[in-house]
């Protein structure tokens, strides 16, 4: 049986599945239920400064995008940080950590951008004997209007400054939670590292409006006729998070910088993908909010089976394996030739591939043969774009087949077994210059 234990910046947990800072981790009751269900750790719902807590709206704070059978694909929220008194949270954190020593307990924090505020809260959080803190520089709504959350996360200098304070005032590991609402995620990650952070976690939610009500013309969720953008998360954001994680994983300035991956993680496979992209663990919010804590059973059993089947004894055995395979477009092999192939035994003759290719792409599919409805790829037109593969409703009916020898029927050129990329291509003015 695979060993799922992880040690993330010195924080040990029995498995890599943590609950992200959000409603599932807002109080003792939830967190204890989560631990009973088998979650490896939690990042407690973001705490703010002492004093009167923030207040949330008293109407809908969530919106969602659904698939046809009400499968929740994307989730949107306008919730703020915890709205419970600081002292209550701290007491509960201490109690739960004492009772659940083997689980990771990280506390998320967001206070104004002033040294004294951070110093004060860190001292109190340390008393809970929690395992570390996560700085919430990501929340994109409400808090950002008050100069916190993503308002800090969007300014690398602020990140670096606050991290420095934190590292100065606590011996606990400091994880910096990044916002995706930024052009280049490497910049805040570099700033976090420069400030001395132990790790980054990403992504927080993405600015979003899920719908507009076409009767009231108000964005959803609507509070008394008005709406505000919220933060998007859930399965829909996974590709964005995965790409951002890959950017940090392969940036020379943040090479080897520990990453806790967040964003749309719903199954064991999502987790395995993020870990292969170098994440040391994963955090989950929407999947738990959609299906309940019990889904961790499938995440653990699935990851463990996959590792057994692949012969990986520990998480470290496959962590980061995908990183060397991520590169820039300019280094992709332009001598690699493939053609789409339609399996005639599986084809149900719906014609979706034809419509896609004929109307919007390269006119490389025929729809008739010997007077009969028949769909077949014409190699002399096919550029192997993969569109037909993706729109075909039958799994594995259309596949991409590499052509390794002979002549590419489309270009009339001999297949060149030697790889060559854009940097070497004759059409690239830069490469010509290099040749001169």
């Amino acid at each position, binding site marked *: 049986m695979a060993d799922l234990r992880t040690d993330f910046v010195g924080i040990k947990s029995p498995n890599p599945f943590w609950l992200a800072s959000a409603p599932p981790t807002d109080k003792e009751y939830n967190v204890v239920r989560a631990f009973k269900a088998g979650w490896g750790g939690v990042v407690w719902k973001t705490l703010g400064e002492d004093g009167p807590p923030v207040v949330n709206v008293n109407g809908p704070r969530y919106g969602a995008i659904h698939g046809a*059978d009400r*499968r929740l694909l994307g989730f949107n929220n306008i919730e703020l940080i915890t709205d419970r008194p600081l002292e209550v949270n701290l007491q509960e954190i201490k109690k739960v950590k004492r009772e659940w020593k083997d689980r990771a307990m990280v506390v998320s924090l967001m206070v104004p951008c002033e040294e004294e505020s951070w110093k004060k809260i860190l001292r109190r959080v340390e008393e809970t004997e929690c395992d570390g803190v996560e700085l919430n520089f990501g929340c994109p709504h409400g808090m950002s209007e008050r100069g916190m959350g993503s308002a800090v996360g969007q300014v690398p200098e602020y990140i670096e400054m606050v991290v420095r304070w934190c590292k100065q005032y606590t011996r606990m590991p400091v994880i910096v939670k990044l916002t995706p609402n930024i052009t280049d995620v490497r910049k805040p990650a570099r700033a976090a590292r420069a400030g001395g952070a132990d790790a980054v976690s990403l992504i927080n939610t993405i600015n979003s409006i899920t719908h507009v009500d076409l009767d009231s013309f108000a964005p959803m969720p609507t509070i008394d006729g008005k709406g505000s953008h919220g933060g998007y998360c859930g399965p829909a954001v996974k590709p964005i998070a995965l790409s951002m994680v890959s950017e940090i994983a392969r940036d020379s300035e943040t090479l080897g910088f520990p990453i806790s991956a967040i964003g749309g993680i719903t*199954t*064991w*496979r999502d987790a395995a993908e993020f870990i292969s992209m170098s994440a040391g663990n994963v955090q989950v919010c929407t999947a738990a909010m959609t*299906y*309940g804590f*019990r*889904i961790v*059973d*499938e995440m653990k*059993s*699935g990851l463990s*089976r*996959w590792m057994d089947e692949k012969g990986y004894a520990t998480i470290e055995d496959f962590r980061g394996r995908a990183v060397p395979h991520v590169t820039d477009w300019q280094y992709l092999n332009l001598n690699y030739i493939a053609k789409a192939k339609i399996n005639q035994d599986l084809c149900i003759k719906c014609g979706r591939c034809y419509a896609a290719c004929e109307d919007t792409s390269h006119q490389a599919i025929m729809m008739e043969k010997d007077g009969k409805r028949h769909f077949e790829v014409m190699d002399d037109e096919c550029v192997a774009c993969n569109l037909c593969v993706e729109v075909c409703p*039958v*799994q594995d009916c259309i596949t991409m087949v590499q052509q390794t020898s002979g002549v590419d029927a489309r270009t009339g050129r001999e297949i060149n077994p030697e790889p060559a990329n854009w940097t070497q291509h004759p059409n690239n003015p830069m490469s010509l210059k290099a040749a001169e």
Partner: protein
Amino acid sequence: MAQAPDIQAKRLSKAQLEANFANLHAPLNAHEAFVESDRCYFCFDPPCMKACPTSIDIPLFIREIQTGHPKSAAKTIFDQNILGGMCARVCPTETLCEEACVREHAEGKPVKIGLLQRYATDAAMADEHPYGRGKFSGKKVAVVGAGPAGLACAHRLAMHGHDITMFEAQKKAGGLNEFGIAAYKTVDDFAQREVDFVLAIGGITIEHDKALGKGLTLEQLEKDYDAVFLGVGYAGVNELGLKHENSKGVEDAVYKIAALRQSKDLSKLKVGRRVVVIGGGMTAIDIALQSKLLGAEEVSILYRRGREHMRASAYEQELALSHGVAICEWVMPKKLITKDGHAIGLKIEGTVMKGKKLVGTGKTYELAADVVFKAIGQTFVDMTAGALALEDGRIKVDEGKRTSRPKIWAGGDCVAGNKALTVAAVDDGRRAAESINTFLRGSHHG
């Protein structure tokens, strides 16, 4: 009603018979399983799980299928029900998990839990056995009867490290999985393949042609073993109590079904042209439908109450009706009509409820038949010579399936309160094994 009875083999061509006795439901392919598993809502405190006698974590196994791990799904199933493969084929899911599915209530279209379970277990059974034998405990347990109850018990005991000897009256293991279940529910010798799968854990030996009450005694077993489990099923069948019941052409459905299940060439099996079945349970449906599939022209089931009272589920009734079987409700057999020692028909009387009592209406009619099947229930035959306390004619057991004698446990059809379903037998077997294990570990010396 004077014609000679028409009973013969080869009513249908071999090809037709083969088609008739193929899988009742085609198994799901990967894509179908993926789409179907997506329909599960992963309910909280899942009603389907509560409705399953073996409490399989159904939402979890369906989610495991959804995420591409049918073998993990199978493990989730086997953890509770090592005969999950057979149960996927034979459970009346329409009255168990699928009846409880919230989508049944919402749309009348439950998630196809049985077919998904089959998809998962089929994937895993092609593989290595998923469990290891526990470290040998030094204890020996005798299991009498290698039906679903006995097999489930033996497997769980082997997981706990005990040594098991099974004593089985028949030459084949499997119990009614091998001799009773309708042929189209368990094609391709599945019952024997499943027995092999269960035994692959190791530590279990089966001694065939060994029957309790015929050579084997309870006292001897108690002496030779640390604990004993009885999973002997029902050995007897109920009688109609009519004159001429021993005439030719009057048969016990369960014996005919056993012969059908053991037949290597269905075209050699004789079947009547007009078949009458008396009864209202699964056995009645099975013999009626299988007679029809063998080529009988007219098949009628006679039941003494209304269809809603039948033990066979509405789905099973529908299955029979859709194959051309007639179900005559509110009638009872009055008299067997025979000629030259052979049944040629029945005299039937209408029935009606008078208060709480079922009584004849006095109206009678005659029904011609070449064969009459009795399918009015089976009975437990006590082969322990009264050594065990009984309740309602079956062995009395406690929660842990322990009998009135401290070293003896029992489960399946032979115990009081059991629902007489494969899955109920499996559940008893597993529970008994857990109780036996606690007992053996407790009485551990050193």
